[in-house]
C-alpha cells in the first residue's frame, strides 16, 4: 500500500496527464459518435426498413473484439490517437443509434398524427415532441456509450494512443501491480463518475440545457485553441517511440534530451511502450514515428533477410545490420552504444554454490538437476536454446515455457532454478541471480542504436549528430542499474536518463 502511494506521488504529473488524455480521447469519440448516430437515427426513423438495417450493422460492429478492431484500423488510419478515436467512435455508435432509434420509434403514433394534423413542420415535431420524448432513452444511450468508451479506451494504449491504458499495459509488462491498480481503478472511477454525472444531468431539463451550453462553449473554445495552434509557426516535430519496458524508455528520454540540447526549438514527442518489434518497425516504415532504439540482433533475426552467418564480433554484427537496413529498408542505423545486450542464462545463487556452476560449460555436468523457465521464442530459436544445446551439450531435465515477465517471478519464487534473459535485465540485480559466463561465445553480442529512415536522417543532420554522441557510451552495468531504478524502484525514466547524461558530461 505504501509503495502504491509512493508511486502515485512520484508520478502524479504523468498520471494526471494520462487521466486527462483518457478523458480527452473518450469525449472526442463520444461527440463524434453522437454527431453520427443521432442524425442517422433521426433520419432513418421514418425509413424503418433501413433503420433496422442500421441496427444490424451497428450490432455487427459491436461484436468485433476491440483489440481486433484496433488492429484493423492500423493499415487504414495508422497508429496513435486517431485510430483509437475512430475505433471507439465505431463502438459508441451502436448504443447511441439503438437508443435514439428506439426512443424515436416508440412514440405513441396517435401523438405523432396529432402533431401532423396540427400542421407542425418536421423540424417543429422533432424539436417539440419527438426529441424531448426520446430524450431519456437517448441519455441512457449516451451513458452506456460513455461507460463503454472509457472502458475500451484502456485498450487504445496498445496502439499508442496513451491514456490510462498505458498504466495497465505497463503493469502487465513489468509485472507491476501498482501500475495495474492505478490504471484499472482510475478508469473504473472515471466510468462511474461520468455515468453518475450523466444520470444527474439527465434528471432535469434545466441541468440538461446548462450542460448543453457548457459543452458547446467548451467545443468552441477547444476549436479556437486548436485553430490558433495550427496557425502558429510549427517548430521541428520529432516523434520517438520505444518498445515495451524500461530500457527503451530510458534511451528515448536520452535521445530527447540530446536533441533538445542542440536545438531548443525541436518539439519531441515520446511514445514509450509503443508496442512489440514488428509494430514499432512498421510505424517507422510508415513514418508515423521518426526514431526508435533498436538492437543489432533483432535487426538480423526479425527485420531483414540475410543468408550470411551471424558474425561473432559485436562490431561486425552492427556493420552487417547497418548495411542491410540501408539497402533493404532505406534506413539509417546510427552509432551503437557501448553495452552489449543479448541472451544469457541466469541461475539462483543457491544453485550456483551447490553445483559450482558459474559458466555455461559447467551446466553439462548438472543437466538432470536443471529446471528451466524459457521465453517461448528463446526455446525455439536456433540462436536460443536449440543452438545452445549443440554448443554446450545441454539437455535440461525440465523446461517450462512462459511469458518473459513471469519467468523471473518463477525463479524468484524458486519454482525453477534457471532462466533465460537479457544481459541488462534489472531482475538479475533485483533477485540476486547469477549470470553464467558464455565461455564459448555462443550468444552473439547485440548492441543498441537509434534507427530512423534515411530521408529523416538527411533532413535532420543535427539530430543525427546529437544522437551519435551516445555512441560508445553506457556500459552493461550502467544500463542494468538504470533499468533497476526505473522498473524496480519506479523512478521516472526521464529523471534517470537525465541524471546519466549529466553525470557523464553529455549534457551540461
Amino acid at each position, binding site marked *: 500500500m505504501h509503495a502504491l502511494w509512493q508511486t502515485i506521488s512520484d508520478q502524479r504529473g504523468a498520471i494526471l496527464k494520462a487521466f486527462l488524455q483518457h478523458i480527452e480521447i473518450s469525449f472526442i469519440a463520444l461527440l463524434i459518435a453522437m454527431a453520427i448516430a443521432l442524425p442517422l437515427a433521426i433520419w432513418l426513423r421514418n425509413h424503418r426498413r433501413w433503420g433496422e438495417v442500421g441496427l444490424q450493422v451497428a450490432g455487427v460492429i459491436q461484436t468485433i473484439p476491440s483489440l481486433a478492431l484496433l488492429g484493423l484500423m492500423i493499415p487504414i488510419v495508422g497508429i496513435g490517437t486517431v485510430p483509437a478515436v475512430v475505433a471507439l467512435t465505431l463502438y459508441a455508435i451502436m448504443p447511441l443509434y439503438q437508443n435514439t432509434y428506439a426512443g424515436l420509434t416508440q412514440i405513441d403514433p*396517435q401523438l405523432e398524427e396529432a402533431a401532423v*394534423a*396540427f*400542421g407542425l413542420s418536421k423540424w417543429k415535431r422533432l424539436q417539440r*415532441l419527438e426529441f424531448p420524448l426520446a430524450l431519456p432513452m437517448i441519455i441512457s444511450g449516451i451513458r452506456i456509450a460513455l461507460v463503454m468508451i472509457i472502458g475500451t479506451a484502456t485498450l487504445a494504449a496498445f496502439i499508442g494512443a496513451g491514456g490510462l491504458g498505458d498504466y495497465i499495459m505497463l503493469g502487465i509488462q513489468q509485472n507491476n501491480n501498482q501500475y495495474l491498480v492505478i490504471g484499472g481503478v482510475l478508469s473504473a472511477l472515471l466510468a462511474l463518475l461520468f455515468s453518475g454525472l450523466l444520470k444527474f444531468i439527465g434528471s432535469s431539463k434545466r441541468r440538461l440545457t446548462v450542460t448543453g451550453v457548457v459543452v458547446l462553449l467548451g467545443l468552441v473554445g477547444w476549436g479556437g485553441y486548436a485553430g490558433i495552434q495550427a496557425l502558429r509557426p510549427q517548430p521541428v516535430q520529432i516523434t520517438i517511440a520505444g518498445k515495451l519496458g524500461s530500457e527503451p524508455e530510458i534511451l528515448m528520454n536520452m535521445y530527447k534530451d540530446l536533441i533538445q540540447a542542440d536545438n531548443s526549438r525541436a518539439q519531441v514527442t515520446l511514445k514509450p511502450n509503443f508496442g512489440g518489434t514488428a509494430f514499432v518497425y512498421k510505424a517507422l516504415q510508415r513514418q508515423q514515428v521518426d526514431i526508435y532504439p533498436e538492437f543489432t540482433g533483432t535487426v538480423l533475426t526479425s527485420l531483414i533477410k540475410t543468408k550470411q552467418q551471424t558474425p561473432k564480433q559485436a562490431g561486425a554484427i552492427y556493420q552487417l545490420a547497418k548495411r542491410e537496413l540501408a539497402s533493404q529498408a532505406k534506413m539509417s542505423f546510427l552509432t551503437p552504444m557501448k553495452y552489449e545486450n543479448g541472451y544469457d542464462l541466469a541461475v539462483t545463487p543457491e544453485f550456483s554454490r551447490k553445483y559450482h556452476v558459474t559458466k555455461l560449460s559447467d551446466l553439462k555436468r548438472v543437466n538432470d538437476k536443471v529446471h528451466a523457465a524459457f521465453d517461448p521464442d528463446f526455446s525455439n530459436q536456433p540462436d536460443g536454446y536449440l543452438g545452445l544445446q549443440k554448443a554446450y551439450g545441454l539437455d535440461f531435465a525440465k523446461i517450462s515455457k512462459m511469458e518473459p515477465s513471469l519467468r523471473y517471478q518463477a525463479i524468484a519464487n524458486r519454482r525453477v532454478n534457471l532462466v533465460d534473459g537479457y544481459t541488462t535485465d534489472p531482475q538479475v540485480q533485483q533477485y540476486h541471480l547469477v549470470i553464467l559466463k558464455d565461455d564459448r561465445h555462443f550468444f552473439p553480442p547485440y548492441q543498441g542504436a537509434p534507427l530512423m529512415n534515411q530521408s529523416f536522417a538527411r533532413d535532420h543532420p543535427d539530430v543525427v549528430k546529437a544522437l551519435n554522441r551516445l555512441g560508445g557510451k553506457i556500459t552493461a552495468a550502467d544500463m542494468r542499474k538504470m533499468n533497476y531504478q526505473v522498473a524496480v524502484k519506479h523512478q521516472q525514466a526521464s529523471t534517470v536518463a537525465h541524471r546519466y547524461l549529466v553525470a557523464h558530461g553529455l549534457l551540461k
Partner: protein
Amino acid sequence: MITYRDVGMTYGDKTILKNINLTIEDGELFVLVGPSGSGKTTLLRMLNQLTVPTAGDVYLDDRKIKTYDVRQLRLHMGYVLQDSCLFPNLTVADNVTIQLEQQGVGKQQRRERAAELLTEVDLDPEQYADRYPHELSGGQQQRVALIRALATAPKLVLMDESFSALDPVLRQKAQELVLKLHQTYRPTIVFVTHDMQEALRMGHRIAVLHQGELQQVGTPNEILRHPANDFIRQFFGSRQPHWWQLAYLVQSGLLDQVTVTDQLPVLTQFSDLITRLQTVPQLAFQYQGQGYSVTREQLLTYLGQEGSGTDARTLAND
C-alpha cells in the same frame, strides 16, 4: 363552406365510402353520426387531408382542398381527437399554443392567448398554465385539448369522437362547453360521433352514415319526424335501450352470417333464442330473411356486455 362532391373511398377491395354529396355551411355545428365502420371518421379526415379520397373531390370555399398547401391548411384548422392527445412533454400553455408557435407568434402573445382561453374553460391560468398534462384530470385534459383547437381562432374545427372516452357527466359538461364556445367564436365545427343522443343534442344539422353511404341529412327535428329509411328509424327510433330485441343482436355484428335455407328455424323473439340455446350449444336460424348462427358463448358475451351496464346503443353501433 365545405362541399363533398361524389366522394368515394376504397381500400383494397373494401369500400369505405361511396357517392357522398354533402355541403356544410360556414359557422354551422355539423354532426356526422353513424355506427362504427360507417365511414364518418374517414369523411372527417378528408378535411385535414390525413385521408385522401379515391374518387370525387372535397371543396373548401369552392376550391379543391387538395390544391391547398396542406401544412398551412392544417395549421389554421382546429382538431380535437378522441383521447386528449396532449403532448406529455409540454406544459398546458405550450400545448394550447403549439400551432401559434409554429405560426411564429411571439412568446408573450402566446402566453396571453393561453391565459385567455384557459379562463374561458374555467381553468385558472395562474394555476394551470405551467402544469404538465399528467397533472390534470381526464376532464381537464379534454378541456385543454378543446381550447388548443381554438387557439388560432380557426374558421374550421374538426372533432373526432372527442368525448367518447369521458364518463356521462363529464361528457355532458364537455358538450355544453362546445356549444358555448361555438356561440362565442362561431367557427364551423364538424363533429363526429357514434352516439345519436350526442348528435341530436349538438348538431344544427346531422348527416347519418351507414356502411359508407349517406342515409339522410337534416336538422335533428327533421330526422326524428321524417326518418328517411328503416335504418334511421331504428337508429333514432327508440329512446329506450332494447338490447333484448333480436334486431339489436343481429345489428351488433356479433353473429356469424350463414346462407339462408328453408331448414333454418324462423325466430322473431329474443326469448325464443334463449330457450333454444338451453338445449343446444350452437344454433343457426333465420331472421327477416337472413341466416345467422350463434353459439352459447357468443350469447353469453353479448349478455355479459349488457349486464355490465354498457349503453346498448354503444354496443349495437360499435
